[in-house]
């Protein structure tokens, strides 16, 4: 086995100017990132942002077009096969064999990972137990529900007890209870020192992560703990407006000079402004003119969603003039 060079510096994943192009299209654009060992790192971004493409490069499924990176101390371009021994990966699509039974799938992967005979059975029982599939061990995977499939897929991905696992939208299309159970498992693994690199669309899941990266159009546009993102990456202030007809209030509020933008949020509105102290009186006055009674208006701590919407919009504003010149 080749010696890992920099695992001792505490990073499970390091990326330097990692880039992936498909023809002219830049799917991942010079991403720099360090993920510490034992961390739960969340990778967030809208559809098509480049989350899966990045993970695939880290797992040796795709070759980067440019840049470099290490996973578990091994180089992602030159030592991909070495990396594969040290990681677990769960792809965005369910990727076990549907025509094989639960037990046959587990046996297949434990053979491929060459789990020692002495541990094989214990690992198998552990996965079956963890996924709650004791009664279905001899059922074909095709008949399992979404939550079961996901837990089985996770089980097969960590049969060989890898120190780093990559999970690509592991909970999409799964009910809230199953999602909760799934995250309990992730916490359990992280508690045992496993590094978890996970992509998600769900903001509540993002809050569970130790650190987050926001990727948009292939670029990493924000990075930090959930708390840091809310305080540091949000230059503006957020005001929550609760009123009876938020849809009708939306446009007049957006037109105010003191307001940057506004969005519907639950049963009210979230308004982003340079300074809340200036905006609150302006909004109150405007809504009074329009005869839209306000139930409550106050400055709030931004949610992660506010941060991401604001980051993406400010990124778009920066990019837009350039793109017009280019085209």
């Amino acid at each position, binding site marked *: 086995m080749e010696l890992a060079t920099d695992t001792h510096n505490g990073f499970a994943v390091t990326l330097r100017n990692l880039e992936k192009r498909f023809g002219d299209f830049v799917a991942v654009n010079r991403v720099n990132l360090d993920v510490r060992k034992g961390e739960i790192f969340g990778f967030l971004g809208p559809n098509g942002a480049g989350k899966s493409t990045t993970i*695939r490069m880290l*797992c*040796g*499924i*795709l*070759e980067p077009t440019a840049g470099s990176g290490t996973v578990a101390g091994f180089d992602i371009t030159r030592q991909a*096969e070495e990396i*594969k*021994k040290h*990681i677990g*990966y769960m*792809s965005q*699509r*369910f*990727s*076990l*064999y*549907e*025509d*094989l039974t639960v037990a*046959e799938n587990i*046996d*297949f*992967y434990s*053979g*491929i*990972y*060459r789990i020692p005979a002495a541990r094989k059975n214990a690992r198998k029982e552990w996965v079956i137990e963890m996924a709650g599939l004791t009664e279905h061990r001899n059922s074909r995977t095709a008949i399992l529900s979404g939550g079961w499939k996901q837990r089985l897929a996770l089980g*097969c*991905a960590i049969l060989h007890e890898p120190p780093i696992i990559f999970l690509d939208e592991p909970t999409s299309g799964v009910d809230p209870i199953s999602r909760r159970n799934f995250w309990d498992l992730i916490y359990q693994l992280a508690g045992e020192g496993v590094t978890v690199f996970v992509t998600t669309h769900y903001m509540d899941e993002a809050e569970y992560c130790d650190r987050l990266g926001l990727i948009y159009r292939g670029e990493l546009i924000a990075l930090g703990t959930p708390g840091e993102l809310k305080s540091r990456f949000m230059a503006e202030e957020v005001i929550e407006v609760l009123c009876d007809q938020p849809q009708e209030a939306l446009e007049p509020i957006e037109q105010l000079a003191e307001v940057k933008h506004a969005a519907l949020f639950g049963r009210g509105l979230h308004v982003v402004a340079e300074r809340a102290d200036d905006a609150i009186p302006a909004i109150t006055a405007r809504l009074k003119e329009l005869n839209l009674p306000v139930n409550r208006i106050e400055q709030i701590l931004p949610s992660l969603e506010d941060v991401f919407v604001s980051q993406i919009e400010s990124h778009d504003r920066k990019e837009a003039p350039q793109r017009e010149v280019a085209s």
Partner: protein
Amino acid sequence: MLERLKCMLVKEFIQALRDPRMRFILFVLPVFQTVVFGYAVNTDVRQVATAIYDLDNSQESRELTAQFVKSGYFKVTEYVDRDSQVRELIDRGKVKAAIRMDRGFGAAIRAGRSTPLQIILDGSDSNTAGIVLNYAGKIAARYSEQLQLQQVTRKGGIPMRTGGVELQSRAWFNDNLESRNFYVPAVIANIVMIITMLLSSMAVVREKEIGTMEQIIVTPIRKFEFILGKTIPFVLIGFLDVALITLVAVFWFEVPIRGSLLLLFGATALFLMSSLGFGLFISTISQTQQQAMMSAFFFIFPAMLLSGFAFPIENMPPAVQWLTYANPLRYYIVIIRSIYLKGVGVAVLWPQMLGLAILGGVILSFAVRRFHKTLS
């Protein structure tokens, strides 16, 4: 190495044998194809539907007609008395041949003069037409010989034994020129090619399509373990199909097998290198099973046409004949037919075996080199 290979094989066999459609393709289809070829592909010419266009209606013309019928090659289905009727019957495919004897046919013979006999053939199937013409010529020649003999006798002379030459053709190895003996063994080649090339490529591509390939790629499985795991099942299935078709050929169709079965399996192993090599190559250029199927047929059709299975290679233009040397199926079919019908061994067949080994080695190593453990 062995452990990973073992679990690949277990998985592949479970997948291949659990699916009822797959079982059908693997084991029923080959037998079905053999039976179809055994019964349907028959180029033997017998009992050709024939119209008699007898304008003379004399003793002589009736006698000649009887000779045609007696030969067993012709079956009189229609009697006609106009040109237009002949044309119509042939157009509609009701008859393949018409025999025309003009008025004065009998009189001419009685007077000791020679007289024309016309045979009209449906030339759209040129192969059959040629054979029928050949038979008709022989029957006519025998009849005139008889007439000469009778004439000499009638004139009171002693029939002179003229030293005529008679061609006695005898087809070796396939005494009755049964087309079945020729085609059924070669079905082995077609089936083995289709099953192994098509199904092996689809087995790989299916994993890309359903997404399991991505999961396999992130495991430490080695390229060779994966390739062997995907191809060995089809090697075994290929052998099984050879055995199955041989059983049907020998016990159902009574096709003789005169050579060594061992050699047959050896040649099959050599052929599988090319066939699985192509299958593997196709799997590297296809993303879906449908694409794989299209690409496989892109190889299979020319390979069949240029194999000598149905169309003799000697009849092809020289340039195309050269092309057939690059076709592994050509060698395999020669080997199979020779083992079955001639019973010859390696001493005779080594050039073909060498051809298969070289082509197989080149194709397989090219495909293996192209095969990568990444998605793209």
